[in-house]
């Protein structure tokens, strides 16, 4: 398995936020983490990237990465699109993409990849020299995904990509994510509040409640279960 998580615990200072979370992800798979606010979904992604204090067992390609610095984890091919996008607001769109490729040295490859990103997100190309902070929410989200792609990641972690976006924009975004997964074989772990959309995109879902996984199964099953939908997913 590409990513194996077992007994993951995470702490904000003295407060424990995750209590023994475990799951796995293989090449090219798309899975989603669902749950109410405060369940710890974002914390899982942060723990995977070394952004919060964590304990337990997390292996990427068999390598134990708990305790690694974020910069080093990223170099293994894990791209994190954080909640709030994490855009570099005061540099241009194109510079944001270049920053995504900071760990690479192949100039030609980087340039080609930038063009490819523009191919997926033509609106970004129109605004390539604009300051990223002037982009709309949807465009910034696209930019964040594009920046993550510049890493040529094997795994993409997306934290609430639909947050604050208009429904049509969200649909477009998820279409693109589906395309990316199919064309480039990028595995994805998506944290989402919009459960319906996430279940459509992902093949497998995990349900998180106050720091523990309380349910996990194929999306079709989870999505079909009335009681789960009503108590956890809100629809």
């Amino acid at each position: 398995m590409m990513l194996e998580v077992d007994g993951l615990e995470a702490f904000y200072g003295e407060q424990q936020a995750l209590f023994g979370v475990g799951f796995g992800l293989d090449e090219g798979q798309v899975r989603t983490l669902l749950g109410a606010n405060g369940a710890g979904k974002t914390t899982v992604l942060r723990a995977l990237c070394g952004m919060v204090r964590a304990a337990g067992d997390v292996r990427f390609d068999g390598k134990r990465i708990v305790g690694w610095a974020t910069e080093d984890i990223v170099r293994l091919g894990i791209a994190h699109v954080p909640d709030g996008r994490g855009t570099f607001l005061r540099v241009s769109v194109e510079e944001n993409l270049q920053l995504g490729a900071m760990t690479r040295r192949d100039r030609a490859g980087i340039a080609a990849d930038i063009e490819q990103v523009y191919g997926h997100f033509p609106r970004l190309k129109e605004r390539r020299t604009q300051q990223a902070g002037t982009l709309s929410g949807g465009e910034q989200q696209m930019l964040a995904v594009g920046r993550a792609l510049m890493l040529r990641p094997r795994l993409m972690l997306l934290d609430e990509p639909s947050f604050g976006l208009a429904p049509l924009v969200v649909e477009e975004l998820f279409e693109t994510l589906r395309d990316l997964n199919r064309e480039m074989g990028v595995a994805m772990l998506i944290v989402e509040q919009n459960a319906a959309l996430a279940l459509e995109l992902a093949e497998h879902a995990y349900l998180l409640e106050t720091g523990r996984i309380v349910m996990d199964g194929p999306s079709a099953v989870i999505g079909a279960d009335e009681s789960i939908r009503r108590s956890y997913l809100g629809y």
Partner: protein
Amino acid sequence: MELLLQQVLAGLANGAIYALMALAVVMIYQAIDHLNFAQGEMATFSAFIAWQLIAWDQPYWLAFAVAVIASFVGGIVIERILFRPIHNAPILSQLVAFIALFSILNSTDGEIWNFTIKTFPTPFGREPLFGSRLISTHEAGMIGVTVVILGLLYLFFRGSRLGLAMRAAAANPDSARLVGIRVGWMIALGWGMSSAIGAVAGMLIAPVVYLEPNMMLGVLLYGFTGAVLGGMTSPGGAVAGGFIVGVIENLAGTFIPYFGRELKLTIALVLITAVLLVRPTGLFGRAVVSRV
């Protein structure tokens, strides 16, 4: 009129040094949200190193280069050894660390080279520039070097990958880590560059104010003032602020009758405080908008 022009140019010349210090201060500030109070002392120390080499009959430009490189390395070392371990400590504790560094450097300067003032050579000579009475060659040199350095820095930050990485690390360290930038080393690099700039500033102003351990106190002060005046979020603003402070200081000293000389510092500071009341984040600064 000629006096005015002369004083403005002299103000710009001093202002160039304040601008360099202001820039050095803002660079570190943008990286770590702290003012480096020891910046002046680090610059003085470098100037002393250069002076020593010259006293040992080394050519000026060699001494200059050695001092700049030594500062660069020194800045990095100080950051890694002293400030990185305490970067999570409360702000005031870090402030005291800066004060401690100041104290250590100042006292060490005095011990090694004592407190008698020393002359420091200038590579530009002190003749009137092109025979004009408006500005001397050294003053022109100060402005010239500052402009060159600012140009180089601009090119570096806007045009190079490393420069982009440093800007990103300063603006948004979390996101920078997510793209693989080693934020810790970017901060160290910022310190190194900032120290090197300080060294240049020190070596340019030493011929004017004479070299002694407390040489940079006033200069650093004006540098801070310039940085705050320009706005701590804007390196360009800091530089502009430095020049403005230099001119104000000179004009106040020359033209405000009688107490201009005695209260030079006070007048400069009062003026700047007045500006801040009107524009609380500095002339060119951006108001920091935070979400609650």
